[in-house]
């Protein structure tokens, strides 16, 4: 069965084979880099056990108000709301694949966007396609609102890696360029990230890295002047 290739993504390995992980372990019987040589979830490192994370477990989001002085979640009486700020994968790209060519922008909204729920939009007086800003202690992001009932209240989505040189105006909060999705995030290191040299907890490029907890962030959203400057 031939692999369908495209100029952007071949997915094709030697001999027309599909790219697939762990083939060397399965086909050449190379042991996995774990203590047992098998695939497993259980991590019996002392620190992981101390943290109660020897097996996959639920951890609630951090209390950003108590830890870092961010505003508490919800409306504060002014025309702004503090929400959870999530940066999910965009619909149209994986990894560093370039999504912001003119065709794809014509098939979306042509610039940086922030998805939010009708309830949050109403609370800050934002209508669909209005310019708005997400602000917190880390930075600021300017984008246009996409108001959709697909979004639950209290959460905004800013899709990963929207092009920062396309239609990004200056922000009201800083007067500087209105940032990118990562302008309002920051890396928080968990103690368990510091484990190294222990079976599968040994760093290798593209194999072991920090978890996505730098996305565990809150941000205050508000409407801004609709006359933007570039």
């Amino acid at each position, binding site marked *: *069965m031939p692999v369908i290739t*495209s100029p952007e993504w071949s997915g094709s390995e030697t001999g027309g084979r599909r790219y697939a992980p762990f083939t060397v372990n399965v086909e050449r019987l190379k042991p996995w880099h774990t203590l047992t040589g098998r695939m497993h979830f259980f991590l019996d490192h002392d620190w992981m056990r101390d943290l109660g994370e020897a097996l996959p477990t639920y951890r609630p989001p951090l209390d950003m108000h108590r830890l870092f002085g961010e505003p508490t979640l919800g409306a504060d009486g002014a025309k702004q709301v503090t929400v959870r700020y999530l940066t999910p994968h965009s*619909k*149209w790209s994986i990894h560093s694949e370039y999504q912001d060519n*003119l*065709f*794809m*922008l*014509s*098939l*979306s*909204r*042509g*610039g940086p*966007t922030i*998805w939010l*729920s*009708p309830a949050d939009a109403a609370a800050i007086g934002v*209508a*669909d*396609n209005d310019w708005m800003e997400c602000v917190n202690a880390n930075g600021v992001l300017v984008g246009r609102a*996409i*108001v*959709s*009932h*697909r*979004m*639950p*209240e209290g959460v905004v989505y800013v899709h990963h890696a929207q092009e*920062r*040189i*396309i*239609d*990004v*105006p*200056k922000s009201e909060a800083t007067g*500087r*360029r209105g940032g990118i999705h990562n302008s309002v995030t920051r890396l928080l290191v968990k103690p368990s990230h510091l484990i190294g040299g222990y079976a599968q907890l040994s760093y290798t490029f593209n194999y072991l890295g920090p978890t996505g907890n730098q996305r565990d962030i809150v941000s205050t959203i508000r409407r801004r002047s609709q006359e933007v400057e*570039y």
Partner: protein
Amino acid sequence: MRVMAQMGMVMNLDKCIGCHTCSVTCKQAWTNRAGTEYVWFNNVETRPGQGYPRRYEDQETWRGGWTLNSRGRLKLKAGGRVRKLLGIFASPVQPKLADYYEPWTYDYRTLIDAPLGDDFPVARPKSLITGEDTKITWSANWDDNLGGVSEQGHLDPIVQRVRQESEEKIKFDFQQTFMFYLPRICEHCLNPSCMASCPSGAIYKRAEDGIVLVDQDRCRGWRQCVTGCPYKKIYFNHKTGKAEKCTLCYPRIEVGLPTVCSETCVGRLRYLGLFLYDADRVTAAAATPNEKDLYAAQLDLILDPNDQQVIAAARQQGIPPDWLDAARRSPVYALAKTYKVALPLHPEYRTMPMVWYIPPLSPIVDLLRDQGHDAESPGVLFGAIRALRIPLEYLAELFTAGDVGEIERVLTVLAAMRAHMRNITLEQLQDDSIAASVGMTDQRIREMYRLLAIAKYNERYVIPTAHVEQAHELEELGCSLEYGPYEQPPLGEASGRPAPVAVETFHALRQRQTSDVSVSGEELRGRVNLLNWDGKGAPDGMFPKRREPA
């Protein structure tokens, strides 16, 4: 009985992920030039949503398609000859650019020319129509993934129709969210209202495969076809002043290749193949009094390619044997007529559209699973089809002129297939009662499953090449000297009278279509390629190079 062949398409909406690869590759191939910036022969809409152009399904406004007059005869919804003549210069009823969208580009030059500053430079949007700074307020796919639908979803004509019956049916509420993607191309209708609308007779339906095309030489830019097409799949090129439309990639189809949108479809949801139909009965079928009977009437036009009478009549009409063979292997015939799981888009427009859709079942399965049910067990799934929040009424307004029973039937067949195949996969006892409950057998369900789930390229696209048998015959008509492989009409191969397909042109065409390098300037000698011409100056090869005086 007058048997004719029609190249048709089926799209399985369960598989569409809304990636727009079809739209982009189509645009790159066909409408990547001045005058067609806003044109997408293929587009993918999120439903519920307004679609492209906005609210194109509102025929009270746009007056596309056919209706019945007081004597029960077909007439164009846009009006008869007198009315059309009175409005011929204004052509008043058609979408404006704002209803499509104002195409834009970006000030990319700033990125390299901007002076040194405190902030990095950005490219701001510029209108492709005026060249001025612009604010983007609408696009070819504005309501993608329900963006803005909580505010503007009530403008979706289908939402309006469903809510007329019950306000409760569709709520734009987080807990009741549903959506699916609807990819659209020209329907290549059996009874095209665009063709009937054209005052110049420039639109024609090809006799051999039913592809509907605009003759660019005869089009006078009256734009009546834009009004006439209820799917708004004819576009006005504001640079050439002529109408353009999806060609079903006929240069590819002629050499046995699928359309660009099908070839590049990531989800492999498109099927291409032949229908045989009875051309004598099309008008009568399109004039079926009750709109809800139109789907059945359309299905009834499709002839059985295994029927000896049909085969004999088809041979008499000159349909070559390899085409009849392709018709017997046709995946679109199987899905539309044999299994009856593919439905036409808006049969109530009475155009007899030839792009069919398998309605989406996945949202139902996903929801059941999320609610903690065993989503593929037949008892749960069958009962859920009608009860669930994805409104069957919405699908019915799209595909069966509002007949909810037909939608339920199709979804039940698809659900039965899942349940039956799950039993087999899990090595449980084969339960023939599931198949029997939808009037099928184990064998038939397995065949349908194969076609829907694992059909390979040459099973999904069964496309007989053009006229291999007729090529030699046509050559003998005295055209062979006029149309060699290198001789072309003055404005390129798409201009002038249609060239009969000869062995030479056939191979030249195939070579060009399958080659992955573009024709160089030197090879262009005597042939003009207008595809990438932007309308400025004279294209290469149009006139002989000026010789410098000695």
